[in-house]
């Protein structure tokens, strides 16, 4: 088991290098260091000298990949790529282009992101799985048919409408919760309740339908018929047998996203003014602060790989037949 984990982590390294190379190449085609300097130095009265100085200070004056002027290993290490990208493997994210420490920022913004992502995730899972079970319980009745139609309708609405509409109705018309904002601590739940509910509602359509198909597939198997023949009630069959056996496909979809919860949600965070990593990313894209975007891409990739690993591990936990080797 441990050996397996180590081997998987070892495989991750070339992938991360690939991710870094790709994003690095993309971003430096988009924005030359000159552009970054101009972006950061503002609009009024910017001189070419100021731009040069900025580049030297931030280390953007070096060659991108290969430094012919340096000696030995320095030819590879004294480059922008090494400086800005490979250091991230040591979790040194350096400073954003506006001069703030990225690592520090990420640590403080992780809390709000998780505060919204974790409840959304858990509540969403709970609601959608229950709804799916409910539909399956009433399969082949009008309730099921209309339930599925409802799901498809919910799926067909753009997420933007959920947010805009929900905020308008609940906060503006009904005055039930603050429109936007965030505080940590117990008082914070007033701010979180609406974004969480909206995110959950937005995910109901697709997820319920997906789980419903999983359960239906499971229910048509022989053992279920056997169980039912034993005289077990329908609910027992569903909760005891079907749910447990449908766990593997559910896990495949679910576990991989758990680590990514750290990344936060782009839209919800910026609409509700939650100072998490999602809105950090959006700000960085808008401000074209690529030091931050690179760091976020790197973290995202690491978390994704972690998620894959967790998925594999969770298989062994749910289904003892699965062995990792």
């Amino acid at each position, binding site marked *: 088991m441990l050996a397996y984990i180590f081997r998987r982590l070892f495989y991750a390294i*070339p*992938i991360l290098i*690939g*991710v870094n190379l*790709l*994003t690095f190449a*993309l*971003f430096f*085609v*988009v*924005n030359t260091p000159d552009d970054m300097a101009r972006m950061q130095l503002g609009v009024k009265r910017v001189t070419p000298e100021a731009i040069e100085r900025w580049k030297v200070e931030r280390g953007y004056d070096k060659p991108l990949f290969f430094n012919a002027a340096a000696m030995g290993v320095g030819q590879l290490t004294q480059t922008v790529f090494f400086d800005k990208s490979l250091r991230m493997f040591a979790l040194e994210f350096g400073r954003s282009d506006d001069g703030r420490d990225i690592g520090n920022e990420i640590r403080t913004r992780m809390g709000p992101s998780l505060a919204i992502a974790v409840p959304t995730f858990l509540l969403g899972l709970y609601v959608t799985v229950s709804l799916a079970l409910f539909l399956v319980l009433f399969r082949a009745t009008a309730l099921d048919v209309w339930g599925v139609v409802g799901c*498809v*309708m919910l*799926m*067909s*609405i*753009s*997420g*933007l*409408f959920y947010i*805009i509409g929900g905020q*308008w109705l609940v906060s503006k018309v009904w005055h039930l919760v603050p429109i936007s904002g965030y505080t940590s601590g117990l008082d914070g739940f007033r701010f979180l309740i609406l974004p969480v509910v909206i995110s959950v509602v937005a995910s109901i359509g697709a997820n319920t339908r997906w789980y419903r198909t999983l359960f239906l597939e499971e229910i048509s198997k022989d053992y279920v018929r056997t169980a039912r023949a034993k005289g077990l009630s329908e609910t027992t069959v569903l909760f005891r047998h079907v749910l447990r056996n449908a766990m593997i496909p559910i896990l495949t979809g679910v576990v991989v996203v758990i680590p*990514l919860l750290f*990344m936060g949600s*782009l*839209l919800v965070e910026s609409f509700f003014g939650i100072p998490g990593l999602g809105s950090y*990313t*959006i700000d960085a*894209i*808008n401000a*074209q602060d690529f030091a931050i*975007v690179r760091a*976020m*891409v790197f973290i*995202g*990739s690491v978390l*994704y*790989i972690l998620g894959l690993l967790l998925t594999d591990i969770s298989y062994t936990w749910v289904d003892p037949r699965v062995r990792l080797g």
Partner: protein
Amino acid sequence: MPFQPVVLVTDALLFVLLGLIVGAVWRARRSPPMRRAWRDVGRSRSGMASATILVAFLGIGVADSLHYRPLLESAGGTKSSVYSAEVLSALDAALTPLRVRVERTYSAPLATRSFAKETIESESGAIARDYPRLQFAGAQLADPDRDRDQDVRNRLLRGIGLGLGAAVLTCLGLGTFLGRGQEGGCASGWWAILSGRTTVRWRAALITVLGLGAVIGGLAALAPVYHVFGTDKVGQDVLYLTLKSVRTALVIGTLTTLVLLPVALALGVLAGYLGGWVDDLIQYVYTVLNSIPGVLLIAAAVLMMQGLIDRHPEWFSTAAERADARLLALCCILGLTSWTGLARLLRGEALKLRELEYVQAARAFGVGTPRILLRHILPNVMHIVLIAVVMDFSSLVLAEAVLSYVGIGVDPNTISFGTMINAARMELAREPMVWWSLGSAFVFMFTLVLSANLFADAVRDAFDPRRG
């Protein structure tokens, strides 16, 4: 010639796609299993109804893809014919009254007066604050406040009547065409359709046609003299904008899959069939792509493309071409980030097919790899491709809206659901609220995505052997 045809890249690709569909239908008619599968699609009532609506949307999209540059009236002294730099489409031509009748600013649906009070100077010089009459909407009425409701009702009834009539005629033609092969003649074929006893649920399709006829008839009767969905901030007709958005949505929804298809197909099948280091390499590439958070990758790629387009203005002779290039670039980028899923499915399928006896046999007979791939593997993975295409459509349409909202979507000049929502989201906060832009974008987008989803379900149920 009164116009000069313009073929934008996305137009060409869209027609290629149509051609492919027609070709596929032609082939499918001759292959019994395909025919059976398609008949299964037809067996779904919702599938038939949504297919009908999709055909209507497709019609709008196709009409909007026939681009041309109108001839300018010859100016004095010059002989050579000169074409406008503005690129129009057949849809624009059909909707000319909607396109050119631009009010000053906001007006509510079917309104005859402006949405906001303005200071009006009467001819005698007296100044009053009132809601001024719109320049175009309801201009035919002498006293709009009194006559409008009556006029709207009359036109609506007449329009719906005409629309229904046209729809009935269409249905009659269609029914007769379908019923002609039936034993017992035309009449019994008709009876079968009407009582819903046909294998393919034609009745659902015909009912949808009737519904569409009524809606289109009603709109067509009102649109020339009113702004049915109101006007936006600069006075453009919202109905026109929404109809123009349809093409963008269709292009994004279909071309994205089309441009990524060759890549996904080649890499997925190769990885699955050849295995070994090829498989390792391809898997490496798609794991790398997959592990980058999608939005970030798209953002980076879009910004890069945009820079490239901006640095080379000489590549494009008209603004339409520029916007089109950006649209295509967006398709490619969305494709780039989403081909991995399809490739993975194809790889799995190819892995399975490779072990099947007839493929093994072919290999034993010394048939070359390219030939095996083309003759045996490729045709047998096509159903996966088909399912992927129809399933991805709706999510891509939804994605466009979000990306345009974040500012990394289509060119801001391109009319799309995303740019409409983006422009309209502030209007909800106005006092009093301006809801019609957002509302009609919502209705059209919802209808499109919903029918795409329903159709996709029908196709998947019919083609996915696991569910067969």
